[in-house]
């Protein structure tokens, strides 16, 4: 009897020995940014001039924008061009992979462009240098003056291909440009490309303007203005420049934001010392009251599915964050930690809420899950607030103010961005002081 059993056991061992595969777990690697070479785009010699565009430098300039975008992510390390070994046109046809590998690049971007009949045609290829193959290739046609956007769109496509995540380069940021002494600030609405280029001012600075926010679906903006000393929420079409007051409220309306479908504006309305949250449907003009509480309820922000609203209330005595259904029911407090909380903003992915936290005289930007758990503070400073999400939910932009000395000396307000990992904090360069940033959706969508 027993012998049978042993025979079976022995057989088992043999079988498994001959067919078992060695497995090795790789749980570590380097977290250095991916080395990537961005070859200048080859300019077709048949290209014609167009207005003031310097055609010869265009290929170089586009590649520089792509490089700068990559660098700003902290995920890629664009390599220096003087080490490049191949001419752009030849590399674009088929790179000598082993040569590019020599400079330790793992990916390569090549491309070429042509301006003809007032049309700019750009194509690019992304190469995997270790696999010696093309990863993606695309071509675009547009008016030549759009060349910067082409560079951003290429950056987005490459970013998406290499990270698996949508890019955020072909986007804009609307903000408040500030100038003048601290107690007599002049504030203007301003808009710029995500990389700081193409700054345009949308108001003249005659009246105080605050908290502009993009519509996630189109080129509309909502903001607050003190036009004629009546603090109200406005709607502005940045394409046509037309603007209108939102609703007919008998008092201050503020803290506006669009619903994710872009059809409603949610905001606070203050009356007799009490602020509550309202929505207005932009199509039907129907106004709905969402909260009815004797405390301050403000800074509302919809979840991306439109089903919930996060907001800021001091009904417990101090500013805390709350979440409720979009009809105002089922209000739940989500912050119980030390300190006070403001400006909740729901991430476009829906999984996180970004916020401002104040504790012991310091200000933090952080993220937490939508039930308030998993709080992570990303950055601490003397004063900072008002986070706004990049469209892919990976980066936050916010503004930071410095401490002012006697008569406001040394005061400045600047825009900053940080990864939701807490890494890669950087200042956005703006000519003037800046605050209240809001990140647009991808323009090319």
């Amino acid at each position: 009897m027993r012998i049978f059993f042993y025979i079976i056991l022995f057989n088992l061992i043999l079988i498994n020995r001959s067919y078992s595969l060695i497995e090795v777990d790789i749980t570590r690697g380097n977290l250095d940014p991916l080395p990537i070479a961005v070859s200048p785009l080859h300019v077709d010699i048949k290209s014609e001039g167009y207005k003031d565009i310097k055609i010869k430098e265009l290929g170089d300039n586009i590649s520089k924008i792509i490089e700068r975008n990559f660098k700003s992510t902290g995920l890629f390390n664009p390599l220096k061009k003087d080490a490049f070994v191949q001419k752009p046109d030849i590399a674009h046809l088929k790179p000598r992979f082993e040569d590019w590998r020599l400079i330790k690049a793992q990916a390569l971007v090549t491309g070429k462009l042509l301006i003809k009949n007032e049309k700019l045609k750009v194509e690019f290829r992304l190469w995997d240098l270790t696999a010696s193959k093309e990863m993606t290739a695309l071509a675009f046609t547009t008016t030549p003056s759009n060349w910067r956007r082409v560079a951003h769109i290429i950056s987005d496509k490459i970013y998406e291909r290499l990270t698996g995540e949508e890019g955020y380069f072909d986007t804009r940021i609307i903000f408040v440009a500030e100038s003048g002494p601290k107690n007599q600030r002049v504030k203007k609405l301003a808009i710029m490309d995500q990389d700081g280029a193409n700054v345009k001012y949308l108001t003249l600075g005659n009246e105080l303007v605050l908290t502009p926010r993009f519509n996630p679906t189109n080129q509309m903006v909502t903001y607050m203005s003190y036009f004629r000393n009546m603090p109200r929420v406005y709607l502005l079409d940045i394409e046509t420049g037309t603007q209108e007051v939102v609703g007919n409220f008998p008092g201050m309306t503020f803290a506006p934001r669009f619903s994710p479908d872009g059809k409603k504006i949610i905001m606070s309305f203050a009356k007799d010392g009490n602020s509550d949250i309202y929505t207005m449907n932009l199509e039907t003009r129907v106004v709905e009251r969402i909260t009815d509480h004797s405390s301050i309820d403000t800074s509302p922000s919809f979840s991306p599915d439109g089903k919930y609203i996060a907001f800021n209330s001091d009904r417990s005595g101090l500013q805390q964050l709350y979440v409720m259904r979009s009809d105002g029911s089922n209000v739940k407090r989500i912050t119980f930690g030390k300190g006070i909380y403001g400006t909740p903003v729901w991430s476009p992915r829906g999984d996180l809420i970004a916020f401002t936290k104040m504790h012991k005289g310091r200000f933090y930007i952080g993220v937490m899950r939508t039930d308030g758990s998993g709080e992570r503070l990303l950055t601490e400073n003397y004063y900072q607030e008002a986070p706004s999400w990049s469209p892919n939910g990976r980066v936050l932009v916010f503004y930071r103010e410095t401490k002012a000395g006697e008569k406001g000396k040394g005061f400045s307000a600047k825009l900053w961005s940080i990864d939701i990992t807490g890494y890669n904090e950087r200042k956005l360069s703006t000519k003037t002081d800046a605050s209240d940033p809001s990140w647009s959706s991808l323009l090319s969508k």
Partner: protein
Amino acid sequence: MNLGEKMTLKTNLKNLLLVIFATLILSACSTAKKSGDIDGDVYTGKETVEYLASGVPDRVFFATNKSSLTTASRATLRKQATFLRKNKNLNVTIEGHADERGTREYNLALGERRANAARDYLMTYGISGKRISVISYGKEKPVNPKSSPLSWSQNRRSVTVKVN
């Protein structure tokens, strides 16, 4: 003078010295606070104050994150009410303000709440609500731009401004 008396004299002297010392320290404190004039968290000084009429200060101050009126604020507002009763044709706007240590949107609401606290008090003293409009500037218009507890206390205010 016996020994016991001597002892008591000594302790008395000691106590006296202590009292003098304490007074000195206190006065030193109050001189240091002279530019400050903060009671708890509320500004009590006169540095930034303007006047609607002689003896009628135009503003009252608040504690951090609060909109309740202090005893001093109430006294000031009673003077304003008396002044407004005398000038029946005068309308006013009450501007509510907050300090820079809060988020912009919340501060707008807080400023509104402070201005309304002042307005409500004036109304209980017989001033018609129609004569008083309210506007909040949040933290947008600091009177003192410095980043210090003193200037923050000066900025947490509601100011009554004549409109006509």
